[in-house]
Every structure is written in C-alpha cells, then in structure tokens.
C-alpha cells in the first residue's frame, strides 16, 4: 500500500474532472480502469509511537473516484454479502454523485453504526468478496472499497455536525432492560427507544461500549466515535447504568419479576478468554489478550504518567493467535515500546481470520510472523517470570474431507525463543455469568444462549443476541441480531398493549 507512489490530490482532481461530466455514461471498462484508491494512513514509522488512528480516511475526491469504480450491478453481489443488506450500489452512487447526505441516509436505513462498521467490518469476506470489479481484476483487494466509502459517508456526517438523534415516539410506559453495552445492546436500545419505550442499559464496566471500548484499540477505532453513539442514546432518553453486573448486582429474573421490566435483552458478549492449557501459562508475564488490551485501552495504561493501572512493557513479546485480537495485541505491544514482537500462528497466513488490512498494517509495523508454528510450553525463571517459549513446527498435511489442508506437527522440531511477555489471543468463549445465575435459560454445550429466529430465548420476555449467542463473531453480526431482537421486542410490547 505504501510502496506505490500515491497519486497527488491534483492528479485525483484532474481525473475526476475528466470523468464527472460523463459519470452516468461511463463504460464498465472505463470504471474498472479507474485506479483503486489507497487508504491514506499514518506512516508506519510514526504511528508505532502513538495511539492515534492509523487509517486516516478518504479525501472527498478520492471517495468519489472510488465510488465511480462501482459498476452498479443489477444482481448486486455486494448486498448479498452484507449481513444487514445495506443498499450498497445506491449509497455508492450517491457518493459518486457528490450527495454524501443521501449516501449516509441510505446506509442508515439498515445500519446503525456505520462509522464503526466502516472501520472494523471484515469487508473482504463480506460485501467486497464477490464484487464484480474485484472479480474482473482477479484480486479481492481491488474490489470497490465499500467499507472505506461507508466510513467516508459516516465521518462526513459526524464532522458536519448534522448527526441528529433519531426521533423518539411518545412514551408508551413500557420498560425494557438491555444488558451489556456492545454493538448488539446499543442497537437494541436505539431501536426499542425509538418506539417510545423506556430503556435502561446495564453495563458491568465503568464505561459503556463493550469490546469496542475495552478490546479494539484506539489506533483502529477511536473511542470518541463509540462515545458519540452512546451520547446519542443518552440524548434519546436511554438510561445508562454502569457498574451493574446482572446476575450479581441483580438476578435477571428479578429484573422481570420485581423491577417491572416488560422485556430483557441479553447482549453480554463472548468475554471468557481461552487459554491453551500448556505448561507455564500462569507464569508472571503471561496475559490473555483481553487483559492486555483492557489494561491498555479501557484502563488507559498506555498513558504511563496519568493512569494508575500498570501494564507490562515487555521487550520481547510473543502473541499467540492469528485473528483481529492477536493483531490488536501485537500492535499494542509495538506501541508500548517492545523491541521485538513475534506473532505465532499454527496455520498459514491464508487462514488467518484477521482483516487483511490489519495483517498488512501489522507487517508494516515490524511484527514478525511465525507461521505454521505453535507454542508447546512457556518457560520461566526461579522467580516465576517468563523467559522463553518453546515452539513446535507444523507443516500442511494432506487435504481433509473439507478440502482444507490441516497443519500437522513435525516431530522433534522444538526450538526455543527468548521472550519476557506472552499474550494468548486464541479466542473467547461465551461469558458464563448470566447463564450460571439464570438456570431457567437454555444454553448449548458451548455456553451460548439458545434463541429462535426472532432472538427469543427459552425464558418468556427475554431476548439475546451478539457474541453471547453466536460465539465470538463480529460487530456487524451483533448489530444485525440486535435489530432482529428489537423488532421482536417491539412486536411483543405492541401485542401486549393491544390485548
């Protein structure tokens, strides 16, 4: 991304001037010939020394050029790839036409959190996967950058100060409790409040926002953007109660039976870090990614002079895993001043679940990838501190039934890497607190809450969605589930009011 010479703003302006007069008559060939617009970013050497956002967002002309690449396909494969079915060709066309206000209005018909999703959605496996432009150029990275355009429209709206809280219907006197404050819960709160029902949101932490606040770092998702969504809810009259852990501060059942809530939504996420159960995992200097990231993000430990919460500033850091969480942890370690950060992953880069952009950014920032490797045990000194990890090499075996080549251990391939910090980022299971303290509620064998197609649980009046239902998934899927659950809650309350 950074090695190609980027066209100057003047180049872009000139190109746009030649295209705009004929913007509606452009041939597919001509559209495909428009250069894919790179995302402006902080140079790697600078950004590793700050926590500010890496991707800076398209300039206006860039956004229009990128939007002009869209072929406006009748069958719209992009829309089929979008979990919330945003009318992508329509909003992209609006950007090409210079009508950003219309673009954001179109997006918001389906998505409540475009500034967030535009930044963190795995577009290359969703809307951009089957984009005709990408297919023609035989490279998914050359698909129309739908996510960046979504972000552009959302940022434009926010920066123009036109973001008004949605209208709220007259009070109905009905009460809904929303547990957790991640994307699923924020969506339910907004959609239910809009219908005039009173909404109280309960969050265990001292700050609302869920993973978007405590997990995803500032350099990828500025906290001010998440905070704005929360402020919007407050402006709509949603009551936000922090420091309140349902199951402990109050049992879920009591919310319904004693506190007068007519319905409850559970959006408590996948907050139970997995460990590998290997030797040395409890040594001093070994962290779950959740702990490491929470200390840095939510507790602001990166701000060493100001924050009371400490964080280990390791010199040689190993991060185990290959997803977004692993990339976030590794890139945080770089910013905390590590000399070397090593990412150790059992499969190859192709299988990494992280967004392509994060992998590219991580490499630019000097993180060393050890692929087809796994940590077998963690070694410590006599004071119980980590000194090294013992790795094992893997190779790709023959394809299995699904056609995927599974990694298999190479016997006697152990070797040792000196490390003082190890961050385990191999995923999360469902947060067990509510299921444990709510025996009435049905869960599956992974501890996820079981729901029907309307996100109703086995308990009357109780709905659930997001990671607590899906297992560790994505922001957009959590939001999509929130919308469904909110529709079902609104329906329940409407029915009850009628009878």
């Amino acid at each position, binding site marked *: 991304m950074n090695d190609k010479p980027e066209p100057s703003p003047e180049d872009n302006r000139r190109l746009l001037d030649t295209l705009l007069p004929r913007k509606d008559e452009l041939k597919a060939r001509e559209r495909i010939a428009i250069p894919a617009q790179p995302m402006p970013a902080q140079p790697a050497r600078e950004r590793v020394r700050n926590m500010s956002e890496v991707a800076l967002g398209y300039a206006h002309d860039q956004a229009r050029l990128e939007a002009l690449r869209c072929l406006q396909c009748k069958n719209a494969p992009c829309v089929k790839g979008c979990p919330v079915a945003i009318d992508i060709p329509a909003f992209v066309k609006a950007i090409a036409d210079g009508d950003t206000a219309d673009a954001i209005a179109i997006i918001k018909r389906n998505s409540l959190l475009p500034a967030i999703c535009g930044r963190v959605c795995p577009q290359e496996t969703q809307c951009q996967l089957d984009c005709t432009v990408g297919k023609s150029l035989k490279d998914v990275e050359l698909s129309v950058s739908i996510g960046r355009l979504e972000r552009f429209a959302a940022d434009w709206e926010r920066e123009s100060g036109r973001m008004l809280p949605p209208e709220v219907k007259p009070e109905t006197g009905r009460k809904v409790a929303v547990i957790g404050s991640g994307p699923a819960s924020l969506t339910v709160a907004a959609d239910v409040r809009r219908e005039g029902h009173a909404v109280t949101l309960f969050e265990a*932490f*001292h700050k609302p926002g869920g993973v978007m606040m405590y997990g995803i770092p500032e350099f990828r998702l500025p906290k001010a953007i998440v905070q704005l969504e929360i402020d919007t809810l407050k402006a709509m009259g949603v009551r936000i109660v922090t420091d309140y852990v349902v199951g402990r*501060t109050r049992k879920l059942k009591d919310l319904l039976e004693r506190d007068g809530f007519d319905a409850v939504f559970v959006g408590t996420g996948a907050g139970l870090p997995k460990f590998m159960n290997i030797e040395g995992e409890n040594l001093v*200097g070994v962290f779950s990614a959740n702990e490491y990231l929470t200390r840095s993000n939510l*507790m602001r430990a990166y701000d060493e002079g100001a*924050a009371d919460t400490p964080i280990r500033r390791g010199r040689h850091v190993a991060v185990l895993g290959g997803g977004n969480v692993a990339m976030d942890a590794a890139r945080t370690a770089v910013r905390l001043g590590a000399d070397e950060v090593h990412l150790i992953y059992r499969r190859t880069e192709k299988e990494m679940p992280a967004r392509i952009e994060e992998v590219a950014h991580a490499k630019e920032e000097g993180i060393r990838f050890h692929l087809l490797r796994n940590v077998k045990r963690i070694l410590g000194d006599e004071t119980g501190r980590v000194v090294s990890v013992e790795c094992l090499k893997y190779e790709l075996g023959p394809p299995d039934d699904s056609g995927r080549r599974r990694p298999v251990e190479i016997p006697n391939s152990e070797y040792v890497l000196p490390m003082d910090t190890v961050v385990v980022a191999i995923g999360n299971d469902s947060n067990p607190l509510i299921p444990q303290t709510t025996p009435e509620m049905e869960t599956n064998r992974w501890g996820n809450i079981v729901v029907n197609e309307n996100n109703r649980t086995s308990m009357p009046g109780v709905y659930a969605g997001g990671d607590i239902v899906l297992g560790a998934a994505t922001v957009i899927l959590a939001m999509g589930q929130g919308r469904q659950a909110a529709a079902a809650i609104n329906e329940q309350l409407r029915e009850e009011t009628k009878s």
Partner: protein
Amino acid sequence: MSDNRIIEKRQLADEVCEIRVEAPLIARERQPGQFVILQLDGEFGERIPLTIADADPDAGWILLVFQTVGHTTHRLAALQEGDRIAHLLGPLGTPTHIERFGSVVCVGGGIGVAPLHPIAKAMKAAGNRVTVVVGARTRDLIVMEEPMRAIADEFVLCTDDGSAGRKGLVTEPLAEICARAPKPDLAVAIGPPIMMKFCAETTRPFAVPTVVSLNTIMVDGTGMCGGCRVTVGGRTRFVCVDGPEFDGHQVDFDNMMQRLNAYKDHEQAAHERCHLDEAIARKERDHERQA
C-alpha cells in the same frame, strides 16, 4: 444508581481504615465471601477488589476494611465522610458455602479478619460451633477483635511480638485445635498469602478441610480478563468468578504470590509518587497558612 457515599469512616489501626458506604443494591444482594471492585476515577483510576466485611440490607450500607498499601488505597483513605466513591461494582464472586458442618475454626490474619467476619457470623448462625483465631504482627494492627469475640464460642488472640494475647503465629493454636478430638470439621483461613499457605500446611496432616479466600490482582472482576487466575489442583481457575474461596490444600500459593508481585516495581513507583504528591500538597498548605 446509589451514589456510593461514605457514611462513616474510622481508623482501625495504623494504616487500616474502615468505611461504611451507602450501596443499597450491593447490600441487598451480598452474601458472605463476596467482594466489590472499586475505582476512584473512571478515566485513569485502577480497579481494586475489596472484600465486604459486613452489610445491612435494610439500611443499605456495606462495610469495607482496607490497608493502605498502594496508590489507590492511599487515595481511598484520604476520602472523608460524605465523599463519593466514583465506581463501585458488586457483589462479586461465589458466596461462601455455609452449612452446619459441626465445628468450624476461623483463622484471620491481619486485615484478613475483616473478610472473615461475615463468614464466621454466617457459620455461627447456621448452627456451627465457631472457634476464632485472630492474629496480627503487633497489638496496634489487630482489627475487628470485638465483633469477632462476640461471635466466637472460643476465641484465641495472638501477636507475633506478644504485645497482645499469645506470642506467636496463628498456626500454633490452629495446630493445637486440629489435634483435639474430635478435630474440627472445617477450617477457614483468611489473611496474607503466606499465612494462608502455612495454615493449609498445618491442617493438611490432620485432614481438616480448609477454605482460603484469595485476593489476587483483578481488572474486571467478572471473568473477562483472566488476570486473577490461580492454579488450583493443577487447573487454572479465575478467582473473581470461581472463587475467591478455594480448597487451601489444592492452591499453588507460590505461583499466586509471584503473580501478586507482578507489578511491584510499578506499585513502588506509584506509591512514591503519591507520597511525593502528599508532601508537596503539605508544603503548599503550609505556604498558604504562612501567607
């Protein structure tokens, strides 16, 4: 919700404070063995766990006893009656398993007597014969002696230096009690990790089941981060949700103590900074007074 106001504050001993805090929701739900997490500043403050020493669900308060060991506890000690604690979360952790065991010996060391208090009270209320052993380094560091005496069927006090009660460590009377016939049905030991470790070693040969309450470093307190994890019987457990109480004979205390010291250097620095700040503030006050 409630505003976490400090209703009453008392200095129990040198560096040991007791605060009664208005927290009706927590007081309503809390059970013996549970704790809270508090934070004094939602932006940059750290989150620390404190066990609930007592509570009144009708009056809506909880009692917290703490030693000023670090930056946050120092700041907490500086708050006055009427001041608010910015963030208070709870009650957290799995409550103590209370039943009629028969005879229960409760051993509290130093500040550990505070979390032991509600457990001893509940054990007594469940019909157990309760023996209480309270220990401290020296006379001035004994906390909650009176309420413990009031609960106990038998009460033993000891100090390391002999300035009050018997001279010696709590493990000595504990060993004597275990050697009696019949031996106690359960021991509960709460105090510094090293004391709990040796209490567990003391009861082990007598095969007296021994519950300990661990106070590890925590961040969220809801099972999300794993920072509080300990090794119990070879398995990793989270103190904030699986505990804080565990079978003392199974806990890997050495690993736990190493993990507790993980940020010692940082704590030290913060502590010194805090003392420096206090010194500067004092100087400034002196200046103002002179001016």
